[in-house]
């Protein structure tokens, strides 16, 4: 869908580059998550792909054509976006009036707008509030309304900058399901940024991790989790545990009310099997067992800390 080559962006001529020579592809119908710490350039990258910003260098191709040469009136029929914060709707209009206004700007017919709005308002549990002024909406409701507006014309590409911020659990799940459905059934390409890594973890096919203006990783989300796994396992055992029964040296233990959590650090697959067998032989009841790579949040923490420790080392060597 997109082919990005050596994309660079700086905001002032002599300032540092926010993005330095990024090259990557975005495939049709995939959900690509963009990750990175605050200020890594996630929003800048989305705005460059949206052509809301002009690149300083490099090239973006959209379906084989140079994006900078595609007429905007044509390009913006194919793409939609929910941008960061409550910056997508007018507060003095009702939910439906906002949908109608932005739908008309997307050149949709009123009948189609009404049909799609009805369906989406019900899906997002906003139907009863459709005639309320958006200024009276909660943050979550505003976010839902922004997503409805972005989905109104079944875009080919959907850019979502922190779309689930402020949503309750049920709505978040509904949004996640809808996005997956869009990508799978309608082959909508979705590019998403979120600090809620459970969202990225649950719906993305691939992630692009930005670091110091460059790409630190791009590939399958599952491979990323595996790559930065510290081979850390956590066991939750019913009752208390005799330390002599843990057949491994590098561990931490935390006793809770009814269970004991054991974290085994940097352990091989062979050793973890031995530890488990040893405990089961001694009749311990294991109530939970997980590896750090099962959660993207843990992996990102390792990833960011790896970066910081690298910085600290560089700083130390600089002092010497």
């Amino acid at each position, binding site marked *: 869908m997109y082919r990005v080559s050596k994309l660079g962006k700086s905001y002032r001529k002599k300032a540092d580059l926010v993005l330095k020579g990024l090259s990557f592809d975005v495939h049709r119908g995939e959900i690509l998550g963009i990750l990175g710490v605050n200020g890594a350039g996630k929003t800048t990258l989305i*705005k460059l792909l*949206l052509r809301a910003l002009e690149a300083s260098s490099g090239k973006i191709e959209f379906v084989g054509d140079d994006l900078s040469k595609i007429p*905007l009136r044509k390009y913006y029929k194919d793409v939609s976006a929910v941008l960061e914060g*409550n910056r*997508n709707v007018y507060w003095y209009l009702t939910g439906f009036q906002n949908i109608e*206004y932005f739908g008309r*700007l997307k050149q949709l017919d009123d009948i189609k707008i009404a049909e799609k709005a009805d369906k989406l308002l019900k899906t997002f549990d906003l139907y009863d509030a459709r005639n309320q002024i958006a200024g009276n909406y909660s943050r979550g409701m505003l976010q839902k309304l922004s997503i409805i507006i972005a989905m109104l014309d079944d875009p080919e590409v959907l850019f979502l900058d922190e779309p689930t911020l402020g949503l309750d659990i049920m709505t978040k799940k509904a949004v996640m399901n809808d996005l997956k459905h869009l990508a799978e059934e309608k082959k909508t390409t979705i590019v998403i940024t979120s600090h809620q890594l459970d969202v990225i973890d649950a719906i993305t096919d691939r992630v692009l991790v930005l670091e110091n203006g460059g790409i630190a990783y791009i590939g399958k989300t599952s491979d990323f989790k595996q790559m930065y796994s510290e081979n850390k396992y956590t066991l939750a055992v019913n009752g208390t545990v005799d330390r002599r029964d843990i057949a491994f040296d590098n561990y931490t233990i935390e006793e809770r009310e009814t269970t004991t959590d054991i974290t085994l650090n940097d352990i091989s697959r062979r050793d973890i099997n031995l530890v488990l067998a040893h405990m089961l032989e001694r009749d311990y009841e294991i109530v939970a067992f997980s590896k750090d790579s099962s959660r993207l949040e843990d992996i990102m923490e390792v990833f960011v800390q790896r970066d910081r420790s690298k910085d600290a080392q560089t700083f130390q060597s600089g002092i010497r």
Partner: protein
Amino acid sequence: MLKLFRAELDKYLLEVKTYYPDQIVDMVVKYILFATFFYGFVYNVRNSTAYCVAYMYWIIASSIISELSMSISFEKQVGTIEQLIIKPYPFWLILTVKTYVVLLITALKGALLFAIIRITLPISLVFNINLVWILLVSVIGFTGVGLALSGLTMKFAKTASFESIISYGLLFFSGTIIPFDKMPMTVQRVLNVIPFTAGINASQKLLDGNSQVLYVLLWLLLINLACFVIGYFVFNAFFRNVKTNGVLNNY
């Protein structure tokens, strides 16, 4: 295009409904200004119609010029500007249609204002259809000035003071306060190529019966189109600049 016009008309009517006290205040202020100048400068005025035409021009020109940049300022403030630029309609066209919708409502308000003026003030007005054509041609030029100013607002966010200078400058040169023929000759020559004053001047000559309509309209069309083209390019230059520097959302 019709969808865009309907979208903006419906939205603006809802805005007027929501913030209706603003509209009332606006009409009251314009009535007071009119009455003040009318009585204060009545000896300088050749006839009431000419005075009213100049005043109407000022209302329309300042409305178009300020509305275009105020729209940008408002969209930047509430943060919806980026949603507008990622729509299939060109951004300048959305702004222009938005402004013409405001102009339409302003013209209705203007008509109401003159109805009130006729009832409450000792004034007699003469209607000439050619004045309408001159005004419509002048709107093209006003739009160009408005686009240039809104480009400036895109970059610098708040340009209210700049708008005030333009708006009151236009009032001064509208002939409402000092008739054109009493201004210095050099100033008169310059004013004759500025769409706003050229339109008023042409209207007054037409009312005096010493001007050929076709010639006047062609000259006005030429300078107004030139003004629009300049405004359009200035707007797009600023638009490219803010997209390069990433300041579109700054307020």
